[in-house]
């Protein structure tokens, strides 16, 4: 797929449960990740998100190199824990969701 990697890898990011409030209240982002010599892991994506999408207070989203406690990460509707968490290698058209868990009743 030379054509697609030259124009970057298209994926969708979604934020819910209030996490979208740190991203300009936009729940769904279609993004393109540049061609890279190293694989696009979620670890690398989080740095990209911090530099390119996160609008405010990064400490409410990230803690060290991972997401802060209380945020679930899903890749194509499955818990990232099933897929290697930070080391998961992102593929074209992946849908990655960050859900802040709710506690209200």
């Amino acid at each position: 797929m030379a054509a697609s990697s030259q124009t970057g890898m298209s994926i969708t990011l979604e934020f819910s449960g209030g996490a979208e409030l740190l991203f300009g209240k936009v729940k769904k982002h279609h993004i393109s990740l540049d061609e890279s010599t190293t694989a696009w892991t979620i670890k690398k994506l989080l740095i990209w998100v911090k530099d390119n999408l996160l609008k405010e207070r990064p400490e409410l989203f990230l803690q060290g190199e991972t997401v802060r406690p209380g945020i679930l990460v899903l890749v194509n509707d499955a818990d990232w824990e099933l897929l290697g968490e930070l080391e998961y290698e992102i593929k074209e058209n992946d849908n990655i969701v960050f859900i802040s868990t709710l506690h209200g009743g």
Partner: protein
Amino acid sequence: HLSVISKLENSSIARHSRQLILPEIGVKGQISIANTSVLIVGAGGLGCPSAIYLAAAGIGRLGIVDYDEVELSNLHRQVLHTEDRIGIEKSASVTTAIKGLNSSVVCIPYHMSLNSSNAIQVIQQYDIVLDCTDNVATRYLLNDACVLTGKPLVSGSALRFEGQVTVYNTQDGPCYRCLFPIPPPPETVTNCSDGGVLGVVPGIIGCIQALETLKIASGIGASYCQKLLVFDGIDGTFRTIKLRSKKKNCVVCSENPTITQLIDYEQFCGSKATDKSKTVKLL
């Protein structure tokens, strides 16, 4: 404790005729429901719809735990309370509503906060526990107490236009700590007082909790074990997520747990077991 019933009375057959004819329920399922006891923790936006639909369906015994009294600002979502019960204990108010609909349900109000010293004693008297609370500390408390006593925990939460449902600690699925070994930083937790909530959103979520509970009680089994239902009321979308299995190194539900009795959850979470104020000073 409930005395075990083995056949349905005529009044129960007349009342439940529309659900008795469901092949998935039938007389056997209805008897199971009548022999089940459920503890609802939180008599608020989630607890009200859960409680009334469980009572309607003929759950044998319902315990209702809440430390709070009814306020005017509750009535936009806590629909079992009434204007003339403002100031009354919420657990008593819900009990009154349940008695009006189905007097054959044994309903027990607990006007108290659950904490490490009393939770086990209350929970061990029930078969299924519903987490209808509004704070992180109580959510960890209920999780650990349900793991230690072997009870399924039907957990719901709602905020703004969003809601989430999952069932912990049953059918070999994970517990709350398997998913969230570390509590969220207190400054990232928003409650309904600060973030707001449209009342019918916990209505939808509480009803789904009641449905999951009835499926466990009647032997059908829960749908959201090892799954999380995520509802977005603005977009009208429901998403079901496949969650991880039980964690081999979970501190409470694994084979070699390090937590074998309840701890201080307000200290663990750095926040109070109430939605009224957010952080607790750690000494």
